[in-house]
């Protein structure tokens, strides 16, 4: 071959050989990695943090090509807990006794214990946001209870319908679109709200079921009494207090309210629904309204939020005056009392009753956030922000300090659209039995 081709060949050869000398640095085979799917943070002794990792075992999860597998969540995960000064030191320690290298890119859920949350989780959130491997869409969860709540919670999670616990988390925590009892508290939202001067962060509450057998079920921990109701509605619980029994022990309901990076309180299920409505993120859900015309009965509505709420903030005498208009649509699911609410005359009554019910709930909840929690979780600061021209004016205004003095006005506009399949309820026809 000519000298030109010879020359280019030698150059090419030299390059190829130099590549083989340098080697491939970041190449890591898939089966050299271990993928934890959840992390729990508990308070350790002496400024250290106790980390629990929930690791998925792929061979048990996938079942391989020989059939088998399917269900059996217990075997497909393994747990390990370590106490370390910070997240990465803990990861280092775990790497030393787990055979494969930890790869944090599949972590779906970050669980903080209540104790740790009340002290402030700023440093952990910052570390998690800075790390490139952590998913920005993983959920931030607070585990209720004292002591090592996070570890307890993680160890109790046993997915039944899925063989892959990661899928369990993802599906469970995105259920807020059709239940409204949790919210989208992803890491990136949490961080943005944490450093924002116009909103405050929220985290999902999680806990283990209190009740072992169905005879133990009681309503002691429900908040219905505070709300002045005679019986608890489905949203009047927080995680762990739900009157349920089953093999699935983990419960997720309600939100933890943060002020800055410290937890200051909790919202139960119904208040979470209201919070979602205020944000405009409420999908659709079943809501129970006490029957306006018949005591002791309830009406079931399928509530949807089709339009975003209108929010207005005005400053009157140095106090913020917040006005919210919520627009809801409802379908009738069930009328227990049989009253003919589907007719055009009576439907207004039902609408008014529902509107009042919601307005009462809203005012209660908003007052709680202002007076008790002193944190603007619905993000009214965003409306305020638009009124200023420069950044310095806004920071000087200091909305966070002004919020606790706010006055609220809520107007709910609810329209009942469809009655389901029936136009009226006919009472059962039968002789009166056992009543004189």
């Amino acid at each position, binding site marked *: 071959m000519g000298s030109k081709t010879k020359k280019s060949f030698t150059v090419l050869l030299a390059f190829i050989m130099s590549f083989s000398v340098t080697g491939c640095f970041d190449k890591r085979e898939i089966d050299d990695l271990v993928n934890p799917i959840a992390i729990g943070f508990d308070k350790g002794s002496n400024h250290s943090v106790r980390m629990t990792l929930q690791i998925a075992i792929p061979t048990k999860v996938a079942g391989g090509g020989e059939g088998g597998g399917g269900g059996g969540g217990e075997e497909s995960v393994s747990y390990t807990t370590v106490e370390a000064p910070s997240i990465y030191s803990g990861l280092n320690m775990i790497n030393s006794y787990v055979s494969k290298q930890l790869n944090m890119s599949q972590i*779906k859920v970050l669980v903080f214990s209540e104790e740790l949350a009340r002290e402030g989780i700023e440093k952990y959130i910052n570390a998690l946001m800075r790390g490139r491997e952590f998913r920005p869409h993983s959920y931030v969860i607070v585990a209720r209870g004292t002591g090592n709540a996070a570890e307890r919670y993680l160890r109790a999670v046993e997915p039944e319908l899925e063989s892959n616990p990661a*899928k369990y988390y993802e599906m469970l925590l995105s259920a807020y679109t059709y239940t409204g009892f949790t919210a989208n508290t992803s890491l990136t939202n949490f961080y943005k709200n944490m450093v924002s001067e116009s909103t405050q962060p929220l985290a999902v509450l999680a806990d283990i079921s209190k009740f072992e057998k169905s005879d133990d079920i009681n309503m002691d921990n429900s908040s219905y009494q505070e709300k002045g109701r005679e019986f608890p509605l489905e949203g009047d619980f927080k995680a762990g207090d739900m009157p349920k029994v089953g093999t699935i022990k983990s419960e997720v309901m309600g939100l933890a309210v943060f002020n800055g990076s410290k937890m200051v309180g909790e919202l139960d299920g119904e208040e979470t629904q209201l919070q979602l409505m205020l944000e405009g993120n409420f999908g659709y859900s079943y809501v129970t309204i006490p029957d306006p015309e018949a005591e002791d009965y309830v009406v079931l509505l399928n509530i949807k939020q089709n339009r975003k709420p209108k929010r207005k903030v005005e400053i009157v005498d140095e106090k913020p005056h917040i006005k919210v208009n919520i627009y809801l649509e409802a379908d009738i699911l069930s009328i227990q009392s049989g009253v003919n609410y589907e007719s055009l005359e009576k439907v207004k009554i039902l609408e008014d009753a529902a509107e009042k019910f919601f307005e009462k709930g809203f005012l209660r909840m908003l007052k709680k956030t202002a007076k008790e929690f002193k944190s603007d979780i619905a993000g009214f600061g965003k409306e305020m922000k638009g009124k200023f021209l420069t950044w310095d004016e806004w920071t000087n205004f200091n909305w966070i300090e002004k919020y606790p003095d706010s006055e609220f006005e809520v107007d709910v506009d609810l329209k009942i659209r469809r009655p389901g399949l029936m136009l009226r309820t006919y009472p059962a026809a039968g002789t009166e039995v056992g009543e004189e």
Partner: protein
Amino acid sequence: MADLKKLIKDMFVFKEPEPREEFILEEKESEKIVNVTDAHDETSEKKKKGSLRNLFSKSANSEKKDSESGKESNNTENMTCVSKNLKENVEYLKKRFSIPINGDVVLREFDIVIKDRKIPACLIFYDGMVNGMLINLNILQPLMLLSNLDVKGKNGEKDIAEYIHKSLVTHNQVKVSHEFDEIVGEINFGGCGVFIDGIDVAYACDVKGWQHRGVDRPNNEIVIRGPQESFNEILRVNTALVRKILKDEDLVAESIEIGKRSKTPCSLLYIKDIANESLVNEVRRRLQNIKTDYIFDTGELEQYIEDNTLMSTPQIVATERPDRVASMLAEGKVAVIMSGSPFALVMPTTNNDFLQSAEDAYVRFPYANLLRIMRVIAIFMSLLLPGLYVAITNYHHEMIPTDLLFAIEASRERVPFPSVVEIIIMEFAFELIREAGLRVPSPIGPTLGIIGALILGQAAVAANIVSPILIIVVAVTGIGSFAIPNFSLGFSFRILRFAYVFLAAMAGFLGITFGLFVQSIILCNAKSFGVPFMAPFGPKTKSRFQDQFFRSPIWKQEKRPDFLNTKDTQKQPKISRQWRKSEKKKGKQ
């Protein structure tokens, strides 16, 4: 008893090996080193000059000696022109065609009777290459039987020659020549030579009649909708196939001969007032300046005249469909057809020609575009899929959905090799199966395909040598490479695939991007007969040629491709569906 004894004796007693002569390839006379002691008389004189020189001069002398011994036939050997003496001609022919050693040459001597003179003549041809009936009826019969007719005019020799040529030999293609080389050339290609005593010209008649394949269906470029003819190995049949589609007297089929010994006839086809002249001149120049002994197939011809041998993509399209050649000629390209090869070469090409199949033109507009999209996807898959798999599973784990990740991990748990090695093993196995499948005898042919693919793959998975996902990747890649319409391009991608796997193993997506970038640079640099390969994407040509990537409906394709610089750029007028116009007018009335 005696046999047994003999047997034992044979087994144990030493036997001399029988002398067997092994075949040794002897060196040429001039390279032989002959022993000086066997020297001839003459060399003894030159002994003083040194043995080496002796050896060389001895060999020279011996060669000369050999040639001297044949001096008597020197005359006939050095003949180039036909002589008037038939005997000399016959001697020459016998020497040149190695008669009677060469078994399929027939030398037939006969007499022509003109008036009352008997003129001896001879006929020479290759048995099997000629059509015997033609010779009998059109050459022998008139010369032998019907020659006894009146010759009007002078009875000179020249007249006889003319008389024979113009009146007696009732054959439609006869060549008259003085030179032996021309006649022998014709004889070699299925003609027969007629030598007549007293005339210093010979006649070469084209009586080709060898066995050949008929016009068949195309084997490699199969379409559902469209003509089903393909080229065969006869030059005139092929040119006729193209001509009967175009029916244009401006279609020129220039004859060019390639190969010093084989003198293979080729045809250079172009449409005179469409194709660019400099293009035609360039192609002609390249064809005429190939110096080689024998040339066998257009595949070799392609390699002789292409721009860049080392490039991975071909720069000339080889097709076996006459309708495709015709449509490309109509665009302004140039075609070369060679005798003996059923593939015609068309040049210049751009990248779009490799994405198109003949069917695109005959099928309706939406289907053609859908097929093109599929082909582009197939190309990218066949090139990049193994590389992407390696890159994702080795470097970019976070991209994989969690379920899939666990599935891959679980299946890879027991496999001893790293993914790169796995892929290379499976790719090699696939290529082996492909290669072997070409040569498997037909009874086992289909079964080998099934065995190789399914059972081998399944067995490999069960034996934990490869993971099942890999089988899918490799299989899809292989299928993708079959979807590429052009055979050479598919081939080149098979090679490049390995390069991408290595690049991906070295640096993940960065390596793949680097490879894509370098490849696009090289592709954009390539030129095929002066036309940039990536036109019309590369240099964005002014006229909006409507058949680049997506094919616009046929009534919209008005211009010929701009990058060919054709003489006549308008293919169709603006409104090619004139029936639409007239309909409107009728409606108004």
